[in-house]
């Protein structure tokens, strides 16, 4: 726990997890640092003058007050004009960046992104689809064509310094060129209801050969798992069971507010039950736990889950199983 905190602290304070990872991110950072520099200068001036004045001109000092009612309009005009000029410069700089963020290059690969409460689905041109994840090759412009099935969401990748709202009934777009391989956070940043803070995932930036490999391998089995994940949300499983975010699940596991056992890393592993026995979580166990949850209760939890027998069709059950199986590797 302490060690975790320390590691997190170092990463958090240095911002290592947020080095600019796209071509535009570096430009955004340049403007940001210019703004930070200017802010420090102005703050220094304001705080400095304020402190200097309140000390020098505090009641009772002998500092000269002559000429304190001198005409002020020269000062007024000069600082008004000065701020106007600086502000106009900042405006032009920011607007230039923004306009370019809205003009995807012609050779961009188009990936369709759909947001819904509370998950992201991405579909590649080759038919590969993924849930709460986005795999992209490095140094290749990517354009996301995004829409929502319900409320307004927002697709945000802080490491790329970009985000855009995802609206129902129309397409919006976002483009980037990743320049650093790695795995980055993906967030929904427009408040979208109960599990808004869970509506995220990972953006994985890969070298071209690795990405080709990923495309080849994910063409097949991903279908059932992806559909299973949709059902996992639709049947309300995700309301209580943490899944698909190992870090989050681990953090949750240590807390008393958890209402149901997290499902990451469950499949194929031993599960202690509250009658003292231990079972291996195989297909039959998962199946029984969905249809008749009261039969086997995981140690440390109360049974609050309704039975899904007669609710979940056999086809859906297969997909849910595939999804929960896929979580087995997340330990």
């Amino acid at each position, binding site marked *: 726990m302490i060690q975790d*905190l320390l590691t*997190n602290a170092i990463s*958090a304070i240095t911002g290592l997890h*947020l080095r600019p990872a796209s071509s535009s991110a570096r*430009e*955004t950072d340049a403007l940001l640092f210019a703004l930070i520099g200017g*802010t420090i200068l102005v*703050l220094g001036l*304001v*705080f400095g*003058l*304020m402190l200097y*004045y*309140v000390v020098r*001109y*505090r*009641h*009772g000092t*002998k*500092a*000269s*007050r002559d000429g304190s009612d001198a005409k*002020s*309009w020269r*000062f*007024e005009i000069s*600082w008004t004009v000065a*701020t106007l000029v600086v502000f106009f410069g*900042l405006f032009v700089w*920011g*607007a230039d960046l*923004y*306009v370019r963020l809205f003009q995807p290059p012609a050779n961009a690969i188009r990936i369709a992104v759909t947001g819904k409460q509370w998950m992201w689905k991405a579909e590649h041109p080759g038919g590969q689809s993924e849930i709460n994840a986005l795999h992209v090759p490095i140094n290749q412009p990517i354009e996301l064509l995004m829409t929502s099935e*319900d*409320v*307004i969401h*927002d697709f*945000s990748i*802080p490491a790329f310094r*970009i*985000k*855009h*709202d995802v609206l*129902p*009934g*129309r397409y919006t777009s976002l483009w980037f060129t990743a320049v650093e391989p790695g795995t980055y956070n993906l*967030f929904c*940043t427009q*408040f979208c*209801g*109960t*599990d*808004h803070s*869970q509506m995220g995932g990972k953006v994985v930036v890969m070298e071209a050969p690795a990405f080709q490999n990923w495309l080849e391998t994910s063409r097949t089995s991903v279908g059932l798992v992806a559909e299973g994940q949709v059902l996992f949300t639709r049947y309300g499983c995700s309301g209580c069971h943490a899944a698909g975010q190992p*870090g*989050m699940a681990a*953090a949750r596991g240590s*807390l008393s*507010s958890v*209402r149901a056992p997290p499902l990451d890393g469950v499949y194929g592993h031993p599960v202690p039950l509250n009658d003292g026995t231990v079972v291996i979580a195989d297909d039959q166990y998962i199946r029984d736990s969905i249809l008749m949850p009261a039969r086997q209760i995981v140690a440390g939890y109360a049974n609050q889950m309704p039975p899904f027998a007669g609710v979940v069709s056999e086809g859906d059950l297969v997909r849910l199983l595939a999804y929960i199986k896929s979580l087995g590797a997340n330990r």
Partner: protein
Amino acid sequence: MSRTSTVEDLPPSYLNKENTLFSWLCSTDHKRIALLYFGSITAFFFLGSAGAALMRLNLISPAGALVSHEGYNRLFTLHGVVMVWFFLVPAVPVTLGNFILPLMLGARDLAFPRLNLLSWYLFITGGLITLWALFWGGLNTGWTFYTPLSTNYTNGHVVLAVVGIFISGFSSITTGVNFIVTIHRLRAPGLTWYRLPVFAWSLYATSVIYVLGTPVLAMTLILLAFERIFHVGVFDSRIGGDPLLFQHLFWFYSHPAVYIMILPGFGVVSEVITAFSRKALFGYKFVVWASMSIAVISFLVWGHHMFVAGQSIYSAIVFSLLSYLVAVPSAIKVFNWLGTLHKGHIQFEAPMLYALGFVGLFTIGGLTGLFIAALGTDVHLTQTYFIVAHFHYIMVGGMVSAFFAGLHYWWPKITGRMYSDAWGRVAAAIIFFGFNLTFFPQFVLGYYGMPRRYASYPPEYQVWNVLSSAGAVILAIGYLTPLFYLSYSLLRGTRATENPWEATGLEWKTSSPPQTENFRHIPTVVDGPYNYPPPHSPAAPRHG
């Protein structure tokens, strides 16, 4: 004068004229109505703060330490709705403004005293209805009520909350009408426009926004309620409606509303800084017209809340440019306050400390506003904790500090009692420190990309969140301290003289607390505001 004297010993004033509950609840005296408002907004402030405290507690742990996701969503909705509509928007105008404005103008009351009382009843009715919605079933849309989440996808009591906000909106409009007409029609003889104290000007500017912005919010809320009740409406994308239309309408009010919150603060701080620098306001006319131009330009910039929302990029560019324009008058004010300090005779009573804190925190808030007015950086920073930090620097660091500055400054006039200045200074220092510790880390979190309105978050954000929560504890102590020493002052404070700060302004030319008619004889004004004479002798204490 004995420290233990009771109300009955005092000379006749608005406080001891009649003291039945009925006489307070049916009073049309602006001073008593101001106190009714004081009571209600203090309650709302501590309620909203409690929501914030629970949120900060929850965010100590990445997975959420306290409440479920739904619980967290309800908490920040409660915090936002209560703080925005039932504390920040009314705060200074309806309390300090209501009390001081007629005194400042040399008037016996506002132009429409019964309307003033009605506005309090509207406010409290709207407030109670909204509270009912917030507690009975809860609300999880955020204070912004974005469609279609609020219309078709939430099961909170949206309509009820909207009705409450709608009703309290009427209170804003009636207050605004009352103030503007009063300033036009009830100034004392000789009190020309350029002799008006800046506080009166800033209330005028605020009222302009009340009167012209609030009705648009009212219509927006009606359209929202229509859509929620009938499952069809102009924002419904399923039949081709546009959710962005809601955002345009909503921000047309809600951006100027930000200036409703801060403009009166500008006024208070101008009064306090001049009084404790014993010097006229530097560039009085510039400060006045800066307030008035903010009231106008603030209506031209609402689109900067929608840079990544899907509006046309041409609109975004225009709104960005206009947003920079509205920053200019704010910058002018900061420079003018500094100019006022220059070659003054500065004293450090509690109100002055709060005012200086305001200048510092408002400057930080204003400068970080430039980051998000710039389109390129806004794309990264918007919807993150950077936004949260930015507007809290303006709203809490700025506005609440100004509210405290004004409260301490006019406290002797309102209550007729002095408070412990030492405790006031201690509280000001605690608040300044606690505030920075709470909200500065949120700038860093925002830059690192942590989204706002998150009940749980990836663990790499924890350190800064813990720092922020620690600051919140200190801030809470800072806000509770005045509650104690001001309550003590109410009961046992020494009697205040007519003008304990030796300040200018008509409000100091009547007894403390004032009588029901405000003035025995309406004063005639012969000179401009802040006409402070040079101090009698360099080291002489001014009072005591």
